[in-house]
């Protein structure tokens, strides 16, 4: 991965970000509407939230909007958090849901069949530098395929969970994932064939 080409992609471990434990006192203060407590939550989880949003959307502006949307929703709904799941997992789920909602709002991606969805993006347009850049490679995938691939391969979601999130069948999720991986393999294989 060409990290220098994408200054966003550097630094800490995303997965451990959501696994952080938050003090009960901070949560209690946040549940009372204390904005300082929300600032603390953002300081801890803003980065992993943004990382996930960026992986799912592949676009910094959309990722920022998504993080804003998630934290605004968090401020409004934190009273409903009962602590049944770790706070980070709850927030991660909220972020994934928000990202998928954003994708679902974009009808042209939802209504398209997988074949057309993949055909719409021409892999041959990728230049050799992009083929070495993970973020740029993900951009070669249709938005929904990228989200399915990230959720399954990186975030560890099951096909059943992804199917529920997208309101589709498990086989649909499997199909999108298989095609996404196939597309990535093809993209990566291409420069090797050229050399």
């Amino acid at each position, binding site marked *: 991965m060409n990290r220098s080409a994408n200054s*966003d*992609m550097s630094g800490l471990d*995303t997965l451990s970000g959501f696994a952080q434990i938050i003090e009960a006192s901070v949560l209690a203060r946040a549940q009372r509407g204390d904005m300082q407590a929300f600032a603390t939550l953002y*300081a801890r989880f803003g980065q992993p939230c943004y*990382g996930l949003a960026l992986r799912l959307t592949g676009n910094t502006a959309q990722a920022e909007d998504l993080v804003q949307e998630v*934290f605004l929703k968090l401020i409004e709904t934190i009273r409903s958090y009962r602590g049944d799941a770790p706070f980070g997992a709850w927030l991660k789920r909220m972020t994934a849901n928000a990202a998928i909602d954003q994708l679902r709002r974009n009808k042209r991606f939802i209504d398209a069949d997988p074949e057309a969805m993949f055909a719409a993006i021409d892999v041959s347009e990728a230049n050799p530098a992009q083929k070495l850049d*993970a973020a740029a490679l993900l951009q070669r995938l249709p938005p929904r395929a990228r989200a399915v691939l990230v959720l399954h391969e990186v975030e560890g979601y099951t096909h059943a969970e992804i199917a529920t999130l997208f309101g589709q069948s498990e086989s649909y999720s499997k199909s999108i994932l298989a095609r996404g991986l196939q597309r990535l393999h093809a993209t990566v294989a291409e420069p*090797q064939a050229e050399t």
Partner: protein
Amino acid sequence: MTRTDAQPIETVNAILQCIGDAQPQPPADLWTRIEAAHGVRSRRRRLRRLAVGGMFCVALVSAVALHRLHAPSAAPEIDWQARAQALELQLLALEHENRVPVTTSANFDADPATGELAEIDRRLQVAYEHNNPVGQLVPLWKRRSELLDALIAARREGLTLTRI
């Protein structure tokens, strides 16, 4: 699987690993923007609540005003019958005091000034005989009170009431 087939898979796995490991930094001012957006939303919500509350108050006040306009008055009902009887006693006392011929039901007809009073008495009598509902009696008692009021006022000023 051949070596050439395996290479892209390894590369893709490495890419996915790389994507998982990477933790991009959000813009430094993102939290400030979130706080500002929250402030705007809160203000809008407060304004909306105020507007809704204001509209509710206006609706409530209008409803109360309409109810007061159309509903029967909540003020205690005047007992027109008792009032008429009291006024009649007052008139008798006044006439006795001034040595004026006493106006009684019997001589109402003889005095044109009290003709209307006599007519009211007749209508009341008929209404009672026919067991008419109270709703029909009240206006008669009310009119009788008004007539007696006017008659008392006229007697006090020493005038002869020719027409009420």
